[in-house]
């Protein structure tokens, strides 16, 4: 078991024939992901990486039965791509692209919600179910199969955490990089219940950062609904207020969105919060009773 994606998930790639799309689609195929085709307007009818290319997402869905789209189009075209996927009946769009305008995502997300399409990202490493399906840009070999679910706003901290978990003798069910932009798709609050319901997941690692209040919402949800142990780290305890720390959404504004307030809320919800990201693996070992 796992959440959202597995070995049978059929995936198409929007921006399939571009440089990034090609490189990462190839890596995903090598990992075992069922990439069943791709979309590049104007290149319909061609073949790429041994898979058919379509002009529209609708054609790709009709012909392949894909339910998930991995989006690699440039930032200016992301909202169009997301809305096209939603319109074509895709059920989950994984948006890897970094640098999409916030206003565009505001409209794209609203439309996706209306069309019942889930989104992950943008500006994220994607989603991986260990040994089954990788939809994104993460190095697959780090994610050994196991019983820990992972949700993270940061790409490299996802790898860091997974690596520590594996070094402690555990492994990953599914890891989701939700992205660090001001408007993102699935967040802690939607993913936590999925991990709670997944019998194979025994504990959850959640990596947050300064800015916004998604982690505070998560804390409230955990307190009420999550019975599995949760380990959390919030990046940016040492970040100055008012400065954007790399991610578009990582900013303390008007004194709100600090690491301290998020850590306190999570602790109050019974989460094991680590101060140093170097202790994530150890904390998992602890909550798993090893």
């Amino acid at each position, binding site marked *: 078991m796992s959440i959202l994606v597995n070995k049978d998930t059929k995936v198409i790639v929007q921006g399939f024939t571009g440089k990034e799309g090609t490189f990462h689609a190839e890596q995903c195929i090598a990992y075992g992901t069922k990439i069943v085709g791709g979309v590049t307007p104007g290149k319909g009818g061609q073949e790429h990486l041994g898979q058919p290319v379509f002009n529209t997402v609708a054609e790709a869905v009709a012909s392949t039965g894909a339910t998930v789209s991995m989006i690699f189009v440039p930032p200016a075209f992301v909202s169009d791509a997301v809305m096209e996927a939603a319109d074509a009946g895709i059920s989950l769009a994984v948006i890897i692209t970094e640098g999409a305008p916030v*206003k565009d995502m505001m*409209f794209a997300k*609203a439309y996706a919600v209306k069309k019942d399409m889930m989104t992950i990202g943008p500006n994220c490493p994607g989603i991986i179910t260990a040994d089954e399906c990788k939809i994104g840009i993460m190095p697959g070999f780090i994610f050994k199969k196991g019983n820990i679910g992972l949700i993270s706003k940061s*790409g490299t901290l996802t790898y860091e955490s997974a690596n520590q978990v594996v070094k402690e003798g555990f492994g990953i069910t599914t890891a989701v990089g939700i992205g660090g932009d001001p408007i993102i798709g699935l967040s802690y609050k939607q993913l936590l219940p999925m991990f709670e319901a997944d019998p194979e997941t025994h504990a959850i690692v959640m990596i947050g950062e300064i800015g*916004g209040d998604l982690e505070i919402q998560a804390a409230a949800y955990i307190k009420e609904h999550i019975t599995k142990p949760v380990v959390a780290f919030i990046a940016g305890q040492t970040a100055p207020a*008012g400065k954007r720390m790399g991610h578009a959404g990582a900013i303390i504004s008007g004194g709100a969105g600090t690491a301290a307030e998020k850590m306190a809320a999570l602790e109050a919800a019974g989460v094991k919060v680590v101060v140093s*990201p*170097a202790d994530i693996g150890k904390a998992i070992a602890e909550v798993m009773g090893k």
Partner: protein
Amino acid sequence: MNIHEYQAKELFKKYNVPTLRGHIAFTPDEAVKAAQELGGNIWVVKAQIHAGGRGLGGGVKLAKSTSEVREMAAQILGMQLVTHQTGPEGKLVQKVYIEEGADIKKEYYLGLLLDRALEMPIMMASTEGGMAIEEVAHNTPEKIIKVSIDPLTGFQSFHGRKLAFGLGLPVEEINTFIKFASALYKVYMDHDAEMIEINPLVKTGDGKFLALDAKMGFDNNALYRQSQVNEMRDLSEEEPTEIEAGKFGLSYIKLDGDVGCMVNGAGLAMGTMDTINYEGGKPANFLDVGGSASAETVAKGFEIILKDPNVKAIFVNIFGGIVRCDRVANGIIEATKITNVNVPVIVRLDGTNAIEAAEILNNAGIANIVAATDLADGARKAVAAAKGE
């Protein structure tokens, strides 16, 4: 990206958001000329820097004659203006905005920003004009009226009515207010703004609303399609090292500690700073080298970090994913040839090809490069090195 008050008001004028007339001046002479052109017998001389709280810091002054305009402009131009948003060193004032006077009857607050939880813009208004909105929110939250504006509907009159009645405006002023707020929403959306703050918004003796001040910030991801806003960028308001880092695809922010950091990925970069702090040290900077971490970017990273004389040690923390660690290791060795790195460099490379990378660094035998096994080990070694241990 932020712009100055006078620039925000230029955008307002194009959308018929009422402001006062004014001119920008770089010298006291220009200030006097501006006042003469505006006419009247009262003017406000306003320092133009990217920070709030200018009035309290002595950067906004009232002048009742052109000779006073000259005097005030001479005082303000060239000063290091210190406000609660500039830090103790303040910001150099290079231009002043000369504005005509106004018959102010009452001051309000009006702001627009993205509500990240609702994923749509919210407009906020308050009767507590002139006060910092964060303080009002903290002390008297009931005095802030908020409306969320679904982007699919846009700004409707009911949004404006909710705010206007909430502010206790008399019925005959409601429509004027709605017109103002509606035009402001259009400014916000059309320019990919991240934030607009009018503090104070004033009501004049004849029942008109005016943006007495104006603050605007923009979504950096959208600047590619906002040429007019781009032209308003004032590089002198930004940190020179941060601008230079940006040219090389590096994201750098200077802090006040002594352990330099070079990391791939924004989250891990923040996490590395936190780990240094946890181990008893203080990070000197945030630096995300991005996805490539080539010899050239690593060398540039070293160069930028070492511009800060406080740096006593550098912690290079790379988790190789698609980026292979052996390449990064070679990059580090090359970088030490390009740039003179005269402080201890603690290197932690993990992930793809980490073992090969360790060998490369060992074989290179560079005296001030110290290998670390993991994040905690690297942070500890870097903190110790910075302390001269």
